[in-house]
């Protein structure tokens, strides 16, 4: 087993659609050992599942391919290893597409690992039959209630299968649904030889993963405290975790990049999207966020240490998605004077016309951008508006009703209150609502599969 003193793990992407130049920046602006990239949001899998059903060669994050083209030289020449969940519901097809890019670039040797088995969409009926109810964690309803509208179902695997692929020499590891935190923890398990019982160390790696998983959000992006003081956000450096064998992690970024790494930027990220801080549950460990200690170690460098963890639960989390009707949303801009009053009148007229036509919705939502779309009823009324954007949205099971809503919005320009503009985007069209179904499944019911392949 190798025993490195320190490894540098760089976050290159916090979600699908994040800053496209960030992965290349991370690979090229300084030395790193690993580049980790998160591409999957909660309902991304349903989109990928649809793409795969239309074309068996699709179903992964296609945006990953140009990124791989840019970072392949660093993989081959500088031994940078890439770990990403961009494999989606078809990591094998993603691997083949990357091999193809490598071939075109004249690369002779490349090992890619895929981790799969997380996609349980095809086995749902069998699992239900075997007594796995996959009850909704929020509502307690059984999955059978939405079975006929189900679009995807995936298990969140953790770091150990990824570490296994690294152990087998994979230079690139593509997973399906893996936890964001597992992408960062895996290299630590691999390089430091951490075992399944090293709960404090595993928890330290999970905390590092939580800090890295939203990319620039820990290095000055979306930083609320004293946000004006963050230098050069145009060249923001994404976070890098310098992990030590004992579980101490230094969070930093490449020299010469913009952004900020401070105890305060790390605190804001640590508190992002967590529940009970004493129980941050992952497949490997339950991390205790109330044990985390932070210290400013130097400029743009924070030490994260003393993290405690305890044994994990017997379940994996499942993320499923199902079709739940349609929605449409549109905007119109009303100018001074009486901008808000005009927008409110337009809303009333539109609702009246739709009601007269006999259309009904599960929800009809109106808000006024510039006035209350952020803080709703907590928004104080300003003395006077220069302009207000009326934003209306509907949701319902009847696609025709949602379509009719779209057809009633733009006509307000010539048949409603005066001085209105901003209708350039045209008629809002009905879009499918894909609802999220969180559940748990026994770890005994599903097994991750690791497959490492050499370019041939």
């Amino acid at each position, binding site marked *: 087993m190798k025993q490195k003193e320190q490894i540098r793990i760089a976050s290159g992407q916090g979600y699908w659609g994040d800053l496209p130049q960030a992965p290349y920046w991370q690979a090229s602006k300084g030395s790193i050992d690993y580049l980790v990239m998160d591409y999957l949001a909660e309902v991304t899998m349903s989109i990928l599942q649809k793409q795969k059903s239309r074309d068996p060669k699709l179903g992964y994050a296609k945006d990953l391919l140009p990124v791989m083209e840019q970072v392949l030289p660093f993989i081959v020449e500088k031994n940078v290893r890439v770990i990403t969940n961009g494999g989606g519901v078809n990591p094998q097809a993603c691997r083949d597409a990357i091999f193809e890019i490598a071939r075109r670039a004249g690369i002779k040797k490349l090992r890619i690992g895929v981790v799969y088995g997380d996609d349980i969409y095809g086995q749902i009926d069998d699992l239900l039959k075997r007594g796995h109810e996959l009850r909704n964690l929020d509502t307690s309803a059984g999955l059978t209630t939405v079975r006929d509208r189900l679009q995807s179902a995936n298990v969140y695997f953790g770091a150990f299968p990824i570490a296994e692929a690294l152990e087998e020499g994979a230079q690139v590891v593509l997973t399906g649904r893996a936890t964001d935190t597992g992408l960062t923890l895996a290299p630590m398990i691999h390089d430091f030889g951490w075992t399944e019982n090293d709960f404090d160390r595993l928890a330290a790696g999970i905390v590092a993963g939580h800090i890295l998983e939203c990319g620039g959000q820990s290095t000055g992006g979306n930083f*609320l405290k004293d946000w004006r003081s963050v230098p050069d956000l145009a060249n923001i450096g994404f976070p890098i975790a310098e992990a030590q064998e004992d579980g101490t992690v230094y969070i930093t970024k490449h020299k010469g990049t913009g952004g900020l790494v401070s105890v305060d930027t790390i605190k804001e990220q640590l*508190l992002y*999207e*967590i529940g009970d801080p004493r129980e941050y549950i992952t497949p490997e460990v339950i991390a205790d966020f109330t044990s*985390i200690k932070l210290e400013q170690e130097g400029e743009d460098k924070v030490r994260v240490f003393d993290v405690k963890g305890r044994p994990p639960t017997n379940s994996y989390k499942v993320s499923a998605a199902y079709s739940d009707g349609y929605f449409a949303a549109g905007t119109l801009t009303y100018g001074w004077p009486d901008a808000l009053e005009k927008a409110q009148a337009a809303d009333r007229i539109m609702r009246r016309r739709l009601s007269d036509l006999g259309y009904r919705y599960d929800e009809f*939502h109106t*808000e006024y951008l510039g006035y209350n779309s952020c803080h709703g009823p907590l928004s104080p009324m300003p003395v006077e508006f220069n302009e207000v954007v009326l934003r209306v949205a509907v949701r319902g099971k009847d696609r025709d009703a949602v379509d009719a809503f779209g057809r009633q919005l733009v006509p307000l320009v010539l048949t409603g209150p005066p001085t209105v503009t901003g209708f350039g985007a045209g008629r809002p069209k009905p879009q499918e609502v894909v609802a999220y179904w969180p559940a748990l499944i026994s770890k005994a019911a599903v097994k991750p599969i690791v497959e490492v392949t050499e370019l041939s």
Partner: protein
Amino acid sequence: MKRVQLVKLAHARSGDKGDASNIGLIALRPEYYAILREKVTTEAVKKHFTGICNGAVERYELPNLHALNFILHGALGGGGTVSLRNDAQGKTMSTALLRMEIEIPDNIEV
């Protein structure tokens, strides 16, 4: 006693888990943490978010970060992909909480 807005005492970040909004509230100075702990109770937060939060409010303490974490159930109009709101993920719920006013002793500097 004097009334101050939380924006003078804390910074914050918010995100979503389904239809629940999570708001992390961090003391701007370590000495403010005890005040936040005493004054920004689940009841006070629930009342502040009248008309927005339709469910229960949970609060967790992180003394190591001088921070509190709030979970506001039923606060995002159905959550992520179902919500019709402009801010479906509650990204600005952080500053909505910072609008809240609390009473603090006159001798505390803000």
